[in-house]
């Protein structure tokens, strides 16, 4: 789901320093933190962009890395992959933009209705299916509680595992499952009946 195809993004590969090692090194050489920007910025930006749009997404990414940099001494070095940690910070930043997010969902809903947003309309391949599920889906997303939306979209849009989402949100794994379950139930209730849904 998240773009990592250029190879320069994403978690460390074999032979490279892990995120935890980079963070540890950055305590003596602050510039090393830039390695983590190279690895994770695009993923975080993609996630924030989906939820908030271009402008706010750039703010979120910048703020996330600045806060992460300042807090790097508190990083739990037993976790080699720092992606959930960055998401933990990014989620709090996204929460600060909740009005922007709600406005985005309203705008999207309108655009799916009257196709007024040509830019977006161009990118939606199948107009028929867009009318059948995109609009109710966006409206359903807007009605979820922030906590439910955070879990659902971390799993669906950022490809975080349940364990990673639990770590990012600092909640038990069981609570991730509960929130995800509730969120999906609410989403299903909003979708048209003629769309076949596989209940999990």
């Amino acid at each position: 789901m998240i773009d990592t195809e250029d190879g320069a993004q994403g978690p460390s590969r074999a032979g490279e320093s892990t995120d935890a090692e980079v963070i540890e090194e950055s305590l003596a050489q602050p510039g090393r933190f830039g390695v983590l920007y190279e690895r994770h910025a695009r993923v975080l930006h993609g996630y924030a962009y989906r939820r908030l749009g271009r402008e706010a997404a750039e703010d979120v990414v910048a703020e996330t890395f600045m806060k992460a940099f300042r807090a790097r001494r508190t990083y739990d070095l037993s976790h080699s992959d720092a992606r959930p940690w960055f998401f933990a910070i990014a989620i709090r930043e996204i929460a600060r933009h909740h009005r922007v997010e709600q406005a985005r969902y309203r705008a999207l809903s309108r655009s799916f209705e009257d196709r007024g947003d040509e830019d977006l309309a161009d990118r939606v391949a199948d107009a028929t299916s867009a009318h059948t599920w995109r609009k109710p889906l966006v409206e359903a997303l807007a009605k979820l509680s922030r906590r439910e939306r955070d879990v659902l979209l971390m799993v669906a849009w950022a490809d975080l595992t349940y364990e990673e989402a639990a770590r990012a949100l600092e909640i038990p794994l069981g609570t991730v499952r509960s929130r995800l379950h509730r969120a999906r139930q609410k989403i299903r209730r909003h979708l048209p009946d003629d769309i076949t849904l596989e209940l999990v």
Partner: protein
Amino acid sequence: MKDLDLIKQLGDDLAPRGDEPLAGPPASAFRDSSRKRPLKTWQAGVLALTVAGAIAGAATLRPSPNTPGGQAATPRAATVLDNAAAVSQESTASRPQGAGYIFTETISSYPEQVQQPDGSIKTIRQAPVVTQVWLSVEPTKDGKQRQRPEGGNAAWDPWVVLAGCREAQDSDIRASEFSRCARGVLPASFPTEPAAVLAWLKDDRPGRQDSSPPSAGPIAGQDALAFERARSLLMTGTYLRPDQRSAIFKALAQLPGVVAVANVQDGAGRQGVGISAGGTEALVFHPASFAFLGTTSSAVMRQGTTTEVGKLPS
């Protein structure tokens, strides 16, 4: 089509275009500021309290080979884990027979960071939550889970279905794939030799190398992953045979860098001795019997077998 697929498809529609540049960090972004602002009075007070608390905490939490008079010594991590392995081996807990479900009840209380009106972040402990999980002995069958706040007569949240392992391959299950579906029991092929269990937890396979060097600090790399997977195995409601549980503890004892931590509490507030890999969550064992209690965030209160979901063990 699954609802999650629709949400993913919507995510693809809303994603930034591939050719949209992402601004890099400003050149000055990752530099430590040399200017130190003077502390305000309240900040100095908070700092003083924090330092005092940290000193007090260190005095009680750090494993101390030279114990002050009147206080029991904290055993070494390997001793705790070896004792726990021996206790587990002698367990007479009933084994699941044929079909049915493994019932596990846990109480969890996690720290949560809350932003204060002044912008600072305060860590508070969440109210305890009771989780009851039923996992099927038959791996392809779904399990179920429910949660409610602990205490009082709070209603249960709606049931959550835990998808079973549709494509269960008993002969070749990797640690990295284990948590993708719910299993009431481990496959028969799960190793019972500590070295083999450790290799399984690290997901060792031919040609794979751990790039992380040995560290004197908190453990990292595959060792940290192994610790995390062991924690997950012990806590997510899967029934572990006495020899499997024992082998997991012996495997953890082989990890360099795990330490014993005195006077910790599990998620239900029970006192115990912790085994930590340097992270925020330690395993907790009874200080006298070395029975496994849970972790510093969650406590295993009971586990047993039942014939159907929703039914409690007798």
